[in-house]
């Protein structure tokens, strides 16, 4: 931010805490950007003529006579077609050595879409992964996170889904991304020849954590430009939202707010919802789909971050290592796509809903049989069949390395039913059994 004429410059800071400084200033707007000794900062509180600024990179070494310059505007992003193929930092400045973007300047974190202007999502996103397409079908305009422990390959799966989905633009919002993962995304997009439709806003672990609070808004402002102005199908990838929420809690703590569950700010739900709700399907074809990552601690989904996320998003994709087959699978019990009802059996074959449910029910029977086995009880003949079924079902359908069309997935499921069970045991509608049982 270069200094312009008429900008008000202050050089007397009254109070400095770890993350904020307070000074007397007038005619300052709420959420306005500023620089303190060149460091980016934002107005978070105004009481009378006392203005409190949050300094994104922290206040280490800030002098009481540091130069404070107000920008007269909230954070903005310059939008335009030139965004495509570029890499930016949390402030929307290029980090790939390329030129600044020339375009219309838009405030980030803009207003919500009027709900009556939304369309009901109805376009299926095919990923080839049966754990998703068969059991948890995704739809454009949906928002859904991967719930995964930090050691699971969530970024890889997410990149695969992104590349297979037929999106016009893929926007990556990386928060607290390790440098290695940043390079992974860069490479995989480059190798797929998809760089021209990718835009990245990246805050790596080397950057100050509080800066990453701006990343999702930057990514979503760019997404709104392409979805609304250009009527494009935009896919936004946000990883890792747990680190975003951690940054929220740092800020709230430094602002002396009373923490609620798990030391998270009481506004966590609203803070996350504001972002996820940017997912939208418009009537003219434009859409924003959000796929996020929420890392868990030891698979615990009752922690405030995954818990609030689950209440906001339209389902979740739960990654789990299946020890039976030694592969990562999409857990059919804990995963859910709330919007699948809008497409399954409609955009896919009519037997889809029943087949999906029957397979999961049988897989649950297998889980019960496994518990029996672990407790040292004898298994019935039915139990044994469910175990064999479960193994083959995991191998052929749940594993994330599967890549096939939905019809093929359904046929595979029917073949497994016929191999291990009688029609009564599968308990699906009679008409379907007559048509598909082989």
């Amino acid at each position, binding site marked *: 931010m270069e200094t312009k004429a008429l900008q008000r410059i202050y050089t007397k800071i009254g109070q400095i805490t770890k993350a904020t400084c307070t000074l007397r200033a007038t005619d300052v*707007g709420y959420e306005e950007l500023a620089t303190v000794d060149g460091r980016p900062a934002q107005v978070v509180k105004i*009481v009378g*003529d006392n203005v409190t600024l949050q300094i994104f990179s922290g206040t280490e070494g800030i002098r009481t006579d540091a130069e404070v310059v107000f920008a007269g505007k909230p954070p903005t992003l310059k939008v335009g077609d030139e965004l495509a193929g570029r890499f930016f930092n949390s402030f929307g400045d290029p980090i790939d050595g390329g030129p600044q973007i020339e375009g219309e300047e838009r405030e980030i974190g803009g207003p919500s*879409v009027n*709900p009556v202007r939304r369309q009901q999502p109805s376009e299926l996103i095919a990923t080839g992964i049966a754990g998703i397409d068969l059991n948890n079908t995704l739809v454009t305009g949906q928002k859904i996170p991967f719930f995964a422990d930090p050691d699971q390959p969530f970024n890889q799966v997410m990149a695969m889904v992104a590349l297979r989905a037929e999106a016009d633009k893929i926007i990556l919002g990386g928060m607290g991304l390790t440098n290695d993962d940043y390079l992974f995304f860069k490479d995989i997009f480059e190798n797929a020849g998809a760089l021209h439709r990718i835009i990245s806003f990246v805050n790596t672990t080397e950057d100050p954590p509080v800066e990453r609070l701006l990343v999702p808004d930057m990514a979503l402002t760019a997404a709104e430009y392409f979805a609304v102005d250009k009527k494009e199908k935009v896919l936004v990838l946000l990883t890792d939202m747990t680190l975003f929420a951690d940054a929220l809690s740092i800020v709230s703590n430094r602002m002396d707010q009373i923490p609620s569950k798990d030391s998270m700010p009481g506004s966590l739900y609203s803070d996350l919802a504001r972002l996820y709700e940017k997912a939208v399907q418009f009537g003219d074809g434009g859409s924003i789909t959000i796929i996020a990552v929420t890392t868990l601690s030891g698979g615990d989904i009752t922690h405030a971050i995954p*818990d609030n996320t689950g209440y906001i998003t339209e389902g979740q994709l739960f990654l789990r290592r299946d020890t039976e087959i030694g592969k990562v699978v999409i857990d059919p019990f804990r995963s859910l796509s709330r919007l699948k009802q809008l497409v399954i059996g409609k955009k896919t074959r009519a037997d889809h809903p029943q087949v999906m449910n029957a397979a999961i029910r049988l897989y649950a029977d297998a889980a019960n049989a496994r518990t029996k086995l672990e407790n040292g009880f*004898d298994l019935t003949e039915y139990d044994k069949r469910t175990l064999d079924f479960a193994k083959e079902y995991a191998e052929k359908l749940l594993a994330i390395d599967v890549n096939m069309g939905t019809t093929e997935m359904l046929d595979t499921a029917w073949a497994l039913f016929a191999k291990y069970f009688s029609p009564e045991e599968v308990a699906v509608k009679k008409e379907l059994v007559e048509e598909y049982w082989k």
Partner: protein
Amino acid sequence: MSNEQENRTTGKVNGIIANLVIVQAEGPFAQNEICYIVHNGVWLMAEVIKAQGELAYVQVFESTRGLKPGSTVEFTGHMLEVSLGPGLLSRNYDGLLNDLDTMTGIFLKRGEYTATLNTKKKWDFKPTAKPGDQVTAGDWLGEVDENGIAHRIMVPFKMEGNYTVKSVSQAGSYSPDEPIARLLDENDEQIVVTMIQRWPVKKAIKAYRNKPRPFKLLETGVRTIDTLNPMVEGGTGFIPGPFGSGKTVLQQAISKQAEADIVVMAACGERANEVVELFKEFPELEDPWTGRKLMERTTIIANTSNMPVAAREASVYSAMTIAEYYRSMGHKVLMLADSTSRWAQALREMSNRMEELPGPDAFPMDLPAIVSNFYARAGYVVLNNGETGSITFIGTVSPAGGNLKEPVTEATKKATRCFYALSQQRADSKRYPAIDPIDSYSKYLEYPELQKTLAETISPAWTGQVNQLKNIMLRGKEAAEQINILGDDSVSVDYHLTFWKSEVVDAVLLQQDAFDAIDARTPLQRQRYMVDLLLKIINAPLGFDGFEEVQPFYKKIIDKLRQMNYSEFESEQFLAFRKELDRMVAERTAVEV
């Protein structure tokens, strides 16, 4: 924004902390008074939530970005009020009852407020009162036809005391803001009444004679509710459940199928796509009770999770006010709020910004009182003219971490009579609706008033049968635990029988496919048929040679019963399955040892 008050207090913005704004007032103001902050020519609505000397702490119903100290503030002299009148049905509103459809543009613009009622539309008015009638607030003066529902034009609720009708307009077509009656108060002062009246949403409308205990079942078509834990007209209930346990699907099923004249849905801090589903489906779907479109009996209030937090609280109060308005006309109103936890969280955010001492989980200390006052606005009432009306209120609660011991769930449990606990375990095994048959309850089932109506309308044996089913579920759970501890072959065959009997009830009565055209809604008569059939099968003396025989037999029984659920009631196919079942049971009885 209007000039309804001559000496309006004004003020200046003094401080801004997110959506809490501190205003230096230049005159008196009231707690909960509405004011507008003028920011660059845009008027932002706000509500006073604390007064300290000349400082008014106001919560702004909009984003405060860019707001500067010194901006002008104008107080309105009244609390948060909404307009009530014909044309509320089939509309989609935000939390402050701004009509979403008449807003311009794709994005919600800060400070854009639209009229709740369309004053251009004319209504066919029929007078029902005549000059000389003595009336009080809430009494009916006439009616208009609103989507086939008799919309009574009432003496405004704000009018205290007794009035005499001086004149009522003749039958004819009128705009909602035209005078339709003239009343005289006790001092012979004339008051002009139109079809529109205004009411402060945080106050309950009490224009009724009394509120007796509810006694009539409210049919929802959801078997696990109607049969096992019935909801009543004028009852209260809540649905807590972790995410993914099917709260919204269940609530939407209730909203579509329930036997109500009017449905008011408050989507409070929830997903926009779910609201869009209502917007798109309700104008298409048929009300099973009248054959009209569902939207014709419905008002949707959408304050989705990305809309201003302060308006979330307003949204549930606005919805309740609309419900009370229609109840005063003698209608059966069903109100649903999804989710009341989001409202509680909005209260928490504000309490935190005001630096109040926190209660449990940082919620405000008075949360239980606020919740219970709110639920108390529901109920079955006898109006002043002897007619009856009701508000049945079902809220959902989103317990943090799925833990039912958190403050919002506990506060709500104390305030409501029906508890529909959604279980994660049932949801995981896709047993939908995931209402836990053991933990859930309906206190109304213990009401002699309700038992009497059930005996008269369903069958004299009904309450006994329901309790028997509950017992089967409980014993089944105990048997399952024993089998899990001791193993299949270490318990007697009876345990397996007990367990599988509960599985039959679970699979056939409790589980219901909300996405199947036939299974989604089961009328009471069909529920009765299935209950009779289930108990007949369960009570039949069946013989088994060993536990290995039990599971395959009951799996087949369940399969046939489920096929019946998917078939048209009493159709050929339905009866064929029934016949087959009878044969299977008879055969098994024959081999008894």
